[in-house]
């Protein structure tokens, strides 16, 4: 059974996204531990990419800061190895296809298994292209997480049927970033997912406030928060972990 399932086996899951190396990997480590200590059930570690086409300004800037600080895939692998000495919650990488392809897909995905990364989220790898990495993901027991969007319509069932790990349901149109309100009616999509999928579904994109997280978690299995955490990092830099801890605590309390 997928290790990711563990994140969903004790109530609604709170999933925290943190870009590795913003402002440096030491701070990322502290931020991850602060999030876990305060209730985060699953950690999405972002590997920075020069041109993140699915991201809004907040995560774009986080990627840029991380790259300017000299963060590389190899340094992130070493960092995760160290993190795994005490962090036991499931962890996945969120990055772009070229980061994996360019590194060498087999070398990348086999390393994920060795260092304890349980899944991959790749916003530029839709259902039609998943064969690019899926055979290697199966071989090395790394779940390739499927994304479903409000525009997926007739594709929802097809994607849900083959989904592994968990389903990342994109709350609304557009790129990542906080939104004042989420107006998409996600209920019909979630019904179709439930009818077809064997894995849980969590909602992300635009969630920043506890009441939003509560509403999204109420109709699904969990809430994913990225930009709101990155904003704290942008504001507080090395001092951010403490603030991230408080923030995660408030979000986690809201959803359960």
């Amino acid at each position: 059974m997928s290790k990711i399932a563990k994140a969903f086996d004790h109530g609604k899951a709170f999933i925290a996204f943190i870009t590795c190396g913003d402002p440096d990997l030491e701070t990322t480590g502290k931020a991850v531990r602060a999030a876990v200590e305060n209730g985060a059930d699953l950690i999405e570690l972002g590997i920075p990419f020069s041109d993140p086409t699915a991201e809004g300004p907040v995560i774009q800037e986080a990627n840029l800061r991380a790259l300017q600080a000299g963060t590389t895939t190899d340094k992130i692998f070493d960092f995760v190895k160290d993190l795994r000495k005490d962090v036991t919650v499931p962890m996945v990488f969120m990055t772009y296809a070229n980061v994996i392809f360019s590194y060498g897909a087999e070398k990348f995905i086999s390393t994920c298994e060795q260092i304890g990364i349980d899944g991959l989220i790749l916003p530029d790898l839709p259902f039609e292209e998943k064969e690019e990495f899926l055979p290697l993901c199966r071989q090395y027991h790394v779940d390739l997480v499927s994304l479903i969007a409000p525009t997926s319509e007739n594709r929802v069932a097809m994607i849900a049927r083959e989904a592994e790990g968990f389903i990342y349901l994109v709350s609304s149109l557009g790129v990542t970033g906080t939104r004042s309100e989420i107006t998409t009616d996600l209920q019909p999509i979630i019904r179709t997912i439930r009818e077809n999928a064997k894995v849980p579904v969590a909602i992300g994109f635009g969630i920043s406030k506890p009441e939003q997280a509560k509403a999204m978690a109420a109709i699904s299995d969990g809430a994913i928060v990225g930009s709101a955490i990155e904003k704290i990092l942008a504001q507080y830099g090395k001092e951010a972990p403490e603030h991230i801890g408080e923030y995660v605590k408030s979000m986690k309390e809201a959803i359960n």
Partner: protein
Amino acid sequence: MSNQNGRFGIHGGQYIPETLMNAVIELEEAYNHYKADPEFNRELTALLNDYAGRPSRLYYAEKMTKDLGGAKIYLKREDLNHTGAHKINNVLGQALLAKKMGKTRLIAETGAGQHGVATATAAALMGMECVVFMGEEDTIRQALNVYRMRLLGAEVIPVKTGTATLKDAVSEAMREWTRRIDDTHYCLGSVMGPHPFPTIVRDFQAVISKEIKEQILEKEGRLPDAVIACVGGGSNAIGSFYHFIEDKDVRLIGCEAAGRGIDTFETAATMNTGRLGIFHGMKSYFCQDEYGQIAPVYSISAGLDYPGVGPEHAWLHDTGRAEYVPVTDEEAVCAFEYLAKTEGIIPAIESAHAVAYAQKIAPEMKPDQIIVITVSGRGDKDCAAIARYRGEDLHE
């Protein structure tokens, strides 16, 4: 040439967010329907001929031929099209398609501004809303084109992220498309991005080689020995090559922007310095570092200043059917000046890359051989920048 899921050999594909998948599927279905529709083709041909001024001339450059003392040189004059470049061929096709699909708004990326101007023009003509994304750096290099787009009623959004050039404009246009899909068509300007764009844009630009073939057969009674075009994303080049791909005796030569040289980091010569990757919706060759971070490329030419190349070119490169050669800023500027003085034709600095390579190979060829150079656009937009390159304090 592409198979079902838009592959050219191993290149191409649809590496895009799920949010856009139904949009590209809908586009493919609409395109497959309308490309076989006589009424659509009649309307498009009327637009190309009566509005854009096709067919474009195939001009025998007699002075240049004599001066270089080798192969006979013909210029395919895409610079004479309405809006001054080949970009209008694709834009009229896509805008008409978008209109048939019920879209009311066009968005586009632009580098030098030629595709932006063409899109703004088609939007004005067809009564559609238009938003153009342009790297902030390019809005400065090509200020006149920014004014032209605004004059045509388009909104121009300067893109400040990344290197603030063409690749960032593409990224931002893709982001905008994920925000607003229902009424919006992304009018992509080159043979790149996710399937079906490389095929659609190729088909709309293939009119260039279709005409070259007819015109050269009429003038010379034979096919050319070489067809030369500049390559950024590669739309004028694929348009110039397409109907010659099966004619194996015709050399197909794409000229990449080497910038300050392919042994420097200030280059945009993707085939010569890049490697296989996945970016902007496609698998192809990209300038990138060892970790797959896309390189901040450089060329004097805003239109060739792109770190990737269209997937069909990548495939023509793999199979050896086409050659891709680097041409530096300095060589292109010399060719820009040369064509102006020799033939009284000021080419776009992009097209000057193709002229420069013809200058190199023509003298080594025989007088009974023929070279066709595609002059993809006119150079009025570049005059101020080239003057500055030559040390003159000229600003628009």
